[in-house]
């Protein structure tokens, strides 16, 4: 029977191909939506994995997470610098590190932070090592800069008419292992350098810009976009990561609490305080996933609709096909093929085509999701893990079960057909 089925499909290869492709496309649509949504969820959750607690100025919690975890450029309000001072000194905190944005270089965001954050959120260096001086930078794995390369920071986004800080240059001293997060595309520099460039904070040795600590303090509370008071970095200055006095205003601080209980206590404390807002990125993302899930549901209904249409079209094709071949089917019966064999042939042919289509569709859907994830990663640095789960096997089985049921209709038509009438016609 199998041999006959294969010979038949080979003979009708063009029609078979069309059916397989139709099924494959319908399947791929659903599979791609499922995989892509899952990849987005997993990828963003993994990107936020190391970000236990984020403290920022009151404002949009979502924006706070998007800016710190995904380094999405936005003008965040600043909170007083002594928040960091307090957090660093807090016994419930393992480490706390400022995250300062605003500058970029060749499309890569420049993020001012500390060695504690880099050590705490990455797995070490592919080449080189940690910055030790103000003029040094560490780059993520996705940044196309070699050790020793020069980084000239530009204020604001390149496409928005930003200005360069002409006299300030960082040198790349280390490249990090990939983390699969947006930070892979970031250039990490000492936070003090960012402050100095924007004329904030203490200037240990150089006072020629004419601003002092009071001037810096005046900037507290201003937004990142408002700095017009430029300084430059002192490339050879040693790192100062004490943050115990006169810290300039900050957009966000990443906090690593010692225990989960500490995390909740800290969030509570910095949430009720009128000048700060503390969020668990994981919690904010859960809210976003709910929205994402709704979008997925809509897309899945669209996919189901397409699948139902294609299933209906296939039924039509199958019934017409059986009608066209009634003579052949009648002859099979006349020459002694049992009715069940006739049923089996029609059923098996259809099921085989659908099975190949479903298999191909899963491949196609996976490919499409992988392709989209690749585009997303190239743009944002966040790696999206496109992967199948046991639930997808259930989906494939469901597809095949429905196909098996639907193929039974034309097969039953063939089964019931009288050989005499078929041969006469």
């Amino acid at each position, binding site marked *: 029977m199998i041999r*006959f089925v294969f010979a*038949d499909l080979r003979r009708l290869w063009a029609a078979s191909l069309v059916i397989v492709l139709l099924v494959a496309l319908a399947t791929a649509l659903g599979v791609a939506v499922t995989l892509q949504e899952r990849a987005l969820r997993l990828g963003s959750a993994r990107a936020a994995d190391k970000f236990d607690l984020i403290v920022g100025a009151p404002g949009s919690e979502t924006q706070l997470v998007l800016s710190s975890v995904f380094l999405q450029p936005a003008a965040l309000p600043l909170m007083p610098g002594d928040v960091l001072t307090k957090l660093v000194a807090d016994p419930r905190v393992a480490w706390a590190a400022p995250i300062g944005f605003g500058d970029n270089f060749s499309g890569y965001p420049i993020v001012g932070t500390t060695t504690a954050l880099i050590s705490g959120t990455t797995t070490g260096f592919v080449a080189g090592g940690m910055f030790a001086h103000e003029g040094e930078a560490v780059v993520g794995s996705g940044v196309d800069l070699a050790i020793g390369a020069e980084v000239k920071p530009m204020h604001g986004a390149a496409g928005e008419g930003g200005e360069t800080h002409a006299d300030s240059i960082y040198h790349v001293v280390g490249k990090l292992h990939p983390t699969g997060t947006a930070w892979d595309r970031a250039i990490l520099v000492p936070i003090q350098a960012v402050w100095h460039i924007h004329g904030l904070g203490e200037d240990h040795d150089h006072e020629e810009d004419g601003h002092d600590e009071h001037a810096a303090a005046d900037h507290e509370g201003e937004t990142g976009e408002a700095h017009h008071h430029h300084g430059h970095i002192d490339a050879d200055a040693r790192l100062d990561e004490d943050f115990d006095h006169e810290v300039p205003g900050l957009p966000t601080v990443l906090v690593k609490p010692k225990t989960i209980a500490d995390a909740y206590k800290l969030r509570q404390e910095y949430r009720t305080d009128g000048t700060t807002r503390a969020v668990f990125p994981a919690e904010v993302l859960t809210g976003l996933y709910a929205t994402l899930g709704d979008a997925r549901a809509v897309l899945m209904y669209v996919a189901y609709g397409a699948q139902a249409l294609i299933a209906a079209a296939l039924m039509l094709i199958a019934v017409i096909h059986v009608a066209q071949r009634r003579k052949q089917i009648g002859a*099979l*019966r*006349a*020459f002694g*093929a*049992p009715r069940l064999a006739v049923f089996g042939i029609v059923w098996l042919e259809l099921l085989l085509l659908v099975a190949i289509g479903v298999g191909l569709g899963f491949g196609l859907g996976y490919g499409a999701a992988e392709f989209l994830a690749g585009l997303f990663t190239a743009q944002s640095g966040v790696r999206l893990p496109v992967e199948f789960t046991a639930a997808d096997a259930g989906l494939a089985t469901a597809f095949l079960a429905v196909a098996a049921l639907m193929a039974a209709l034309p097969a039953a038509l063939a089964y019931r057909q009288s050989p005499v009438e078929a041969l006469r016609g």
Partner: protein
Amino acid sequence: MLSLTLSGVSISFAGLAQPVLSIDDLTVPAGGRLAVTGASGSGKSTFVNLVSGLERPGRGTIRWRDTDITTLSESRRDRWRAANVGLVMQDFHLFPGLTAADNVLLPARLARAATAEVKARALALLARVGLSRPGQSVETMSRGEMQRVAVARALLRRPGVIIADEPTASLDAEAGAEVGRLLIELADQEGATLIVVSHDERLTERLDRRIRLAAGRVVADTAAEVSP
């Protein structure tokens, strides 16, 4: 080898006043050679359908040796036909995409009756009908060759009766003569009863007995002329 006895057989179709075929009494002995002739619409095809068990008469019995096939269910008749009847039809009904050997074996395979012995017999039969390439695809064959594949298929399961419906009508004279000769020779060789529906006189003349149908009735019978 099967004998055939029809008695009181009549079949009518809805909307037709006259029965399409009505045969009161017809007997073909085991190993007999019967030719059925008649104009189109005379009931020849209905005769083939009835005696091969494809169709059931409105009344009457059709007895092949001890089996009255009118009492069998459709599935039982299918099985009986597969085991006892070798059919050869005007349109060959070979399946494109399969080789000659696969075509010969197809019904047996679908009925799960293709043993090693049956497979060997398929090749032997193809050689016997003069086809030397069992692996040849049937759509590359001439019409005469195709009908010879159909003859080999009909004989595969050692049927007790070979029923041929216009076996030469779609062939040229030479190929038709060859197929006719093979049918008679193989029926002899296999000891099968042979029933041929045909208006090909060169074929029907070579059979023991000829009946002619008109309007569903036997209007001439060579057996009756010899022994009334």
